[in-house]
């Protein structure tokens, strides 16, 4: 009798172990909070393909768009914490709750790994009068209210990047006017049409225009120079203590078993270190930045506070 029970318990224990180690046993969903075909979606699909190959179960991307990223992040955060719903989280997880767009904060997720970071650039039309960022900033100081900046919606990441840069350079953010658009692409249309003067957006989104000589980057808002544009100085080199950019990574709902998180973290880190990932990111003009789970969490936490300050400066803070 006792032996029988012991065997049963042992069997159950073995099965439980096997259960945990046997992740994934069914198809896994990756939620992408942004539209099909965009940069985040391409990255999600690449990771999904590689994870399917590595872990032997299909990983499928589901686009849950809307609410400036709020819909997808919420869907991912409130899914069952069983490792079968991953979310490709983006920077907005650290900004949107401050703007009153959602109650969701970064604490709703457990972080697996960050794989990308794209710094903002200060981009002007090829024939613009400013040769350096210093020229531009001096001109803004001399002519407050004259110049139009654009890059995304009001309170969007590239608006915040602009506010932070001007503030760090000792210029009031009100010295230029922000022209809201629905994203970087329409802002670049405005720039090339000569309807706005400066676009602050991800360098990655303007690669085509810069490389074809239609636009110039005066600076990148990063700690190091961009590998694709080694001639463009960073703000820090120019004496302005400000870095800003977007980033992407993978997260799971809070409370996901740590064995599963470990499996995912190892798999994604391995993928992110591979040659095929490097060439994929280069083809898309994306920057690679790898942070493991705990480090990624600390980073998001720091971002959450950093952006709060900038949102306050721009008058976007809701609570």
């Amino acid at each position, binding site marked *: 009798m006792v032996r029988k029970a012991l065997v049963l318990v042992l069997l159950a224990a073995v099965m439980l172990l096997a259960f945990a180690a046997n992740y994934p046993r069914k198809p896994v969903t990756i939620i992408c909070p942004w*539209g099909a*075909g965009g940069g985040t979606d391409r990255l999600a699909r690449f990771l999904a393909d590689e994870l399917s190959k590595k872990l032997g179960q299909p990983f499928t991307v589901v686009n849950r768009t809307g609410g400036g990223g709020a819909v997808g992040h919420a869907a991912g955060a409130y899914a069952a914490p069983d490792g079968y719903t991953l979310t490709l989280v983006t920077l907005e997880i650290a900004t949107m709750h401050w703007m009153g767009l959602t109650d969701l904060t970064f604490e709703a997720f457990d972080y697996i790994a960050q794989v990308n970071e794209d710094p903002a650039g200060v981009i002007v039309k090829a024939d613009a009068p400013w040769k350096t960022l210093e020229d531009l900033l001096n001109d803004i100081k001399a002519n407050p209210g004259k110049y139009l900046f654009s890059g995304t*919606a009001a309170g969007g990441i590239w608006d915040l990047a602009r506010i932070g840069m001007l503030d760090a350079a000792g210029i009031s953010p009100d010295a230029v006017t922000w022209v*809201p658009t*629905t994203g970087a692409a329409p802002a670049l249309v405005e720039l090339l049409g000569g309807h706005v003067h400066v676009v602050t957006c991800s360098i990655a989104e303007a690669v085509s*225009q810069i490389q074809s000589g239609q636009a110039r980057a005066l600076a990148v808002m990063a700690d190091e120079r961009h590998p694709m544009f080694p001639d463009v100085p960073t703000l820090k080199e120019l004496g302005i203590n400000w870095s800003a950019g977007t980033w992407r990574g993978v997260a799971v709902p809070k409370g996901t078993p740590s064995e599963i998180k470990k499996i995912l973290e190892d798999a994604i880190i391995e993928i992110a270190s591979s040659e095929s990932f490097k060439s994929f990111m280069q083809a898309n*003009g994306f920057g690679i930045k790898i942070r493991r789970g705990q480090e990624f969490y600390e980073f998001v936490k720091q971002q959450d506070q950093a952006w709060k300050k900038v949102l306050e400066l721009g008058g976007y803070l809701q609570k």
Partner: protein
Amino acid sequence: MQLFDVLKPDVLFPLLLSMLFGVFVGAIPGLTATMAVALIIPLTYYMKPVAGLAMVLGASFTAIFAGDIPATFLRIPGTPASGAAILDGFELSKKGKGSLALMLDLFCSALGGLIGVVILITVSPPLAKFALQFTHFEYFWLGIFGLSMAAVLSRGNTIKGLLSATLGLLISTIGIDVTTGYPRFTFNVTELMDGVSFIPAMIGLFGLSEVLKRTSEKSRLQLSAVSEVVRPNLKETFAHIWNHKFTLLRGALVGTFIGALPGAGADVAAWVSYGVEKNVSKDEELGKGSVRGVIAPTSANNAAIGGTWIPALVFGLPGDSITAIVLGAMLMYGLRPGPMIFTQSRDLVTQLFAVAVLIQILLIPVGWLGIKAFSLFVRLKTSLVMTAVTIFCIIGSYALRNSVFDVYVMFVFGLIGYVFEKLRIPLAPMILGLILGRTVEDNLRVGLIKTKGNFLPFLTRPISLALFVMIVLVLIVPPLTKTFSKKKV
């Protein structure tokens, strides 16, 4: 010669597949051309770039055409670009001339598409430069011109038409305000942050409301949904096209140009072309089953596709949501869209142009297949057809964003549509309000941000002024001439 490479099976076969897929997606309400392209793109990463881009072009041209099929038979636009086809196309179909309307749709789509492609091949750079001159001030007037079409759509019933258009405008104000980042009328519902999705609203207004209407008429459920047997009458079709060759040409030119504007796509092109036709032709039958009303929008929306590729290839800037996806895919193929693509990837661009022309020829048989298949389907009993339509209404609105909320939106708009129809309130003005409300509002407000509150640039910039004068003339001249000619008598 690399030009004939496009006739090899590794390009031709995927192209044909994508076109068949395009017919399917286009003819099903709620599945849009953009969605078709987004689904195709991941498959193309493993192909030659020209095969991948051929698939994208093939799917988009056929889907935009095929959207007219359900619009004509059932008054349910298959894609947003077919919004204008529910007017005269459906009226013709009610008179038993559905096959004529669809044959016209098919040939004018192909011809309009061809004109768009020829313009793309020949005058891309200067046209793209001109299109870049358009900014918020000009888009504002373009939106106003489109909105003025509400007057045409509600003829004979001005108050009710105004009511419908205003409700559409009101609904378009829901969501995050792009100029301030403030969520308006969202009541903390996350799904409403981006506003009421246009596609579920459209499917509900036209699709579900049609189902409700037909099911409330008990007697008709046993009959087939559309009684007409579809037979092509090429002679009649070509005679109509020849008689209205200028309508076709106008539609295609307007369509290509609107497409080339980075801020407007095939849906706006179809409405503007309809408006231009109304003002140029003075056709009193427009909206009541005129062939002009079929030809003008259908040639414009297919021509617009060629147009959207103009800024995409010349500047690397998207002309609409499809080219936005394509530009991303081009990076994956290792291409850098922008002015250099014409020199660096010359072979590819040439092949692409050849594919685009080839598609217009293939569109005829593939499109015919689509019409035939759809007409077999609608000849089933109304009860069966309406069940299928309901299912596709639900799938279509869900598929857009994988959102159950959008299914509710679709149901709500279905009820609104049903009630409005009962009260004889026209639905088309509401759709116009929904599509163009944001265009008009955002462009006005962002324009005012640029000028720090000064209205003058809306009137003093050369293109703005030209558009403004044109709108005023269009609205004032016809009634004036009417009064003057009356006085003479």
